[in-house]
């Protein structure tokens, strides 16, 4: 376990390094004049002009060399200082903290919903491979997997919000605002995790130890609870780690669609506006969040699977 966590720590360092260097090089390589881009982000398309760009250039010292600025960023990072957004003038750490909260809220709700939808259905299907539930689920999950998130999100909006009017279409602030974006992400996650659960369950059901459990005299429910559940949850939880990539990518699209003031939304805007500190800050936090989540998955697996405790 220490070793796994050590590896995650190493990954976290890699993330910081990559994000720092990559975003920096990339943002520097972005086309057009940075001062103009920042001015456009800051003052809007009606007010961006050469005067504004020049003022930005002077204020932010954009003439400074790239290496110096990169070095400064890392030095600041060591001191937990992510700098100040060149667009809004707010400290990046405050902006990110604020947005991260919303994203975490959304992601958590999505994961919870997906866990309530995907694995139970998958397990039901896996208990009887080839049965009606299995085939039905395969159909639904194949369909969901072949539709981009935003299409799913739009369908949900059109059906549940504008059609039936039981949920708000977009926005943020009320608890029910959370449901549609979270459901959009959750359906995507569940489409896959249900298959993982189904395959895992089918594997467990056909395993010698499952059969042994039966011939030992345990009832079907007892065999499932004692020998099925834990064995099937290990791959499901492990797969969650893989799904976080999907989740983090998903928030970028879903947040834009549902006007959710999260970190993915902020990142897209920062890229448009060339807000280097915000890009670095959000990318760093997203990368670190990904590592952290994977560390949590490791921890969960460690708790669920006694094999890892003895290894």
């Amino acid at each position, binding site marked *: 376990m220490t070793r796994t966590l050590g590896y995650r720590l190493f990954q976290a360092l890699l993330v910081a390094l990559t994000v720092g260097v990559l975003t920096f090089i990339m943002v520097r390589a972005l086309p057009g004049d940075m001062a103009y881009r920042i001015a456009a982000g800051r003052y809007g398309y009606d007010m961006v002009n050469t005067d504004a760009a020049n003022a930005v250039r002077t204020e932010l010292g954009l003439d400074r060399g790239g290496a110096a600025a990169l070095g400064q960023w890392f030095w600041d990072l060591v001191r937990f200082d992510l700098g100040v957004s060149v667009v809004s003038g707010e400290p990046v750490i405050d902006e990110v903290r604020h947005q991260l909260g919303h994203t975490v809220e959304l992601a958590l709700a999505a994961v919870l919903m997906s866990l309530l939808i995907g694995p139970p259905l998958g397990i039901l299907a896996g208990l009887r491979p080839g049965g009606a539930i299995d085939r039905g689920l395969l159909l639904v999950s194949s369909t969901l997997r072949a539709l981009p998130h935003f299409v799913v999100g739009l369908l949900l909006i059109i059906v549940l919000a504008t059609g039936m009017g039981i949920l708000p279409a977009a926005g943020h602030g009320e608890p029910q605002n959370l449901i549609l974006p979270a459901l959009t992400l959750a359906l995507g996650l569940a489409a896959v995790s249900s298959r993982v659960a189904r395959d895992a369950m089918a594997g467990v059901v056909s395993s010698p130890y499952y059969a042994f459990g039966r011939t030992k005299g345990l009832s079907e429910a007892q065999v499932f609870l004692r020998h099925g559940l834990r064995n099937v949850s290990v791959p499901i939880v492990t797969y969650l780690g893989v799904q976080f990539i999907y989740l983090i990518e998903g928030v970028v699209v879903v947040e834009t669609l549902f006007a959710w003031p999260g970190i993915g939304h902020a*990142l897209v805007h920062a890229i448009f506006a060339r807000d280097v500190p915000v890009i670095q800050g959000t990318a760093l936090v997203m990368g670190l969040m990904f590592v952290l989540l994977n560390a949590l998955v490791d921890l969960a697996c460690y708790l669920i699977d006694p094999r890892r405790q003895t290894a």
Partner: protein
Amino acid sequence: MTTIAVNSSSSVLEQKRISVGRFIGFTILAFIVLFAFLTPLVWPVDPTKQSLRNVLAGPSWSEPLGYDHLGRSMLARLAAALRLSLGLAFLSVLTAAVPGVLLGILAAWKGGIVDRALSILGDVSLALPGLLLVLMLTAIAPDSPWALYVGISLVLWIEYFRLTRATTRTLITSPAVQASRLLGFGPAYIVRRHLWPEISPMILTVGAFGAATAIMAIAALGFVSVGVRPPTPELGLMMTELLPYYEEAPHALLQPIVVVFLLVLSLNLIAGRKAR
């Protein structure tokens, strides 16, 4: 004999299910590819040619799929968008597969420092969610598919690398390879007869899945307006553009959605059940 027969019959059943799925997948894909590449030959309409009189007109004999919001031929646009998505996906998969497989074999074969270094490279690429990378690359070169292409390839190569490395590592220490070496065969033979036959079906699976991912990513990026720019026909972009007209002209909006759906579905079917 009997137990073996039973086991193999059930595995044949399993295989058959996969191959039926694959067959359907290949069929759908073949139709889509034919549609994409034959349409310009039999229906040579410029996909950017507008006729403002025909805005959002429905299907007719003269225009089987109707017109979009600028009176452009949906048929021509769909075919062009498909060519773009398919071409881009194919190229990305190819560029990801070649170095991915080669580096995977290299890492497993050489072991030691080379393996360590390449694995760290893979970890670095994995540590950053792929879309982030693609997003920033597309911001560098808006309106040009190469950024999408490079970004997607950069994300996809790792899967090939990891799978090839894992497969090669097991194979390279297997008795079969040891035997071949003892029998005097060199590395080229081992790659050709031992590794390639094992890796190639995997490449198909990962490739089909990767192509599906690429098509989804291109569409998603089009949706957040950082992908290909108008007036280039692109499936995600077409959806975004036609979305406001969902009530006026649902047929127009549905077309790119159905096409993406079929395309990704066919690729997922080809990839088989293991790929997610």
